């Protein structure tokens, strides 16, 4: 299983690089689809059917929306970067990556060793079916033990839709 995981991850990395560097927006979107569907197969290999279902449906619908938006507007990537701007951009990226890796290595020393989690609540999750009555343990966790997180996620979706509709509106807009 490890071999197929590594193959899929390499495929995802290539898809992401092509999606970033492609000048044709349509082929960029198709390459982005490679990343999402490979992630679906990885979730299935790791025995996570809940995540796999959500991932494959979201990926399909996202591709449909993006392709419809590209077909309606333009296919060419028209963004141009000037010399100094590009140098500044790459410099900022490398600085941020260095700082991030340095702090990450510092934090990594304080984490518990791999395979021995110190999350005491996880022992209570194992008894979730008896406590909540839900046969699907994932539903018991995300909608009962951690329902506050799910409320936050639903609020994020609501806010993003409100933002999209507010940006693309016409009423009350200065032209």
């Amino acid at each position, binding site marked *: 299983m490890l071999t197929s995981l590594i193959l899929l991850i390499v495929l995802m990395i290539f898809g992401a690089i092509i999606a970033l560097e492609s000048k044709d927006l349509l082929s960029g979107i198709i390459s982005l689809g490679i990343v999402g569907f490979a992630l679906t197969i990885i979730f299935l290999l790791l025995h996570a059917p809940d995540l796999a279902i*959500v991932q494959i449906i*979201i990926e399909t619908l996202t591709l*449909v929306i993006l392709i419809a938006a590209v077909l309606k507007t333009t296919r060419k990537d028209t963004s141009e970067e000037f010399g100094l701007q590009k140098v500044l951009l790459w410099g900022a990226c490398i600085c941020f990556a260095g700082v991030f890796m340095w702090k990450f290595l510092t934090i990594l020393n304080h984490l518990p060793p791999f395979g021995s989690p110190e999350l005491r609540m996880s022992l209570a999750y194992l008894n979730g079916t008896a406590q909540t009555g839900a046969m699907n343990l994932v539903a018991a966790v*995300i*909608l*009962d033990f951690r329902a506050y997180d*799910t409320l936050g996620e639903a609020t994020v979706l*609501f806010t993003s839709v409100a933002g999209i509709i507010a940006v693309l509106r016409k009423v009350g*807009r200065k032209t």
Partner: protein
Amino acid sequence: MRGMTLIVKCITQLMAPSILVLGIYVVFHGHLTPGGGFAGGVLMAGSFVLLILAYGSDKVKSDSFKNRASLLESLGIFLFLFIAIMGFLQGSFFKNVFNEWLPGESGELWSAGIIPLCNIAIGVEVAAALFAIFITLAVLKFGEKL
């Protein structure tokens, strides 16, 4: 956006209701089988998106479609918040109140208290939200009156 050919329209007539029913099934059985409100909501939105892609977007370009989607989305998240606040009847936020009033047999459709109700609320919200995003981004022109 124009519609597609007769073949696509005929296949869509068969597929779209099945996808809608599958989405409703996934939402209602979220506490028994893999899936849940999010996956089922996206499936329901996908059936509407399929219909628009196959039959063209001429009939969707009125205000009422987007307004109804916005209303349903707000209603879904309001329902979720209402279920959360209803936990204060027993003392705390998101307390599973129905589990003590009407406890169901584990494994039946009516079980697990507020979890199926939360799934329904999330399903309505996600379906309406993704449908509103699709209408706004892919159907209406930029700056067209919403």
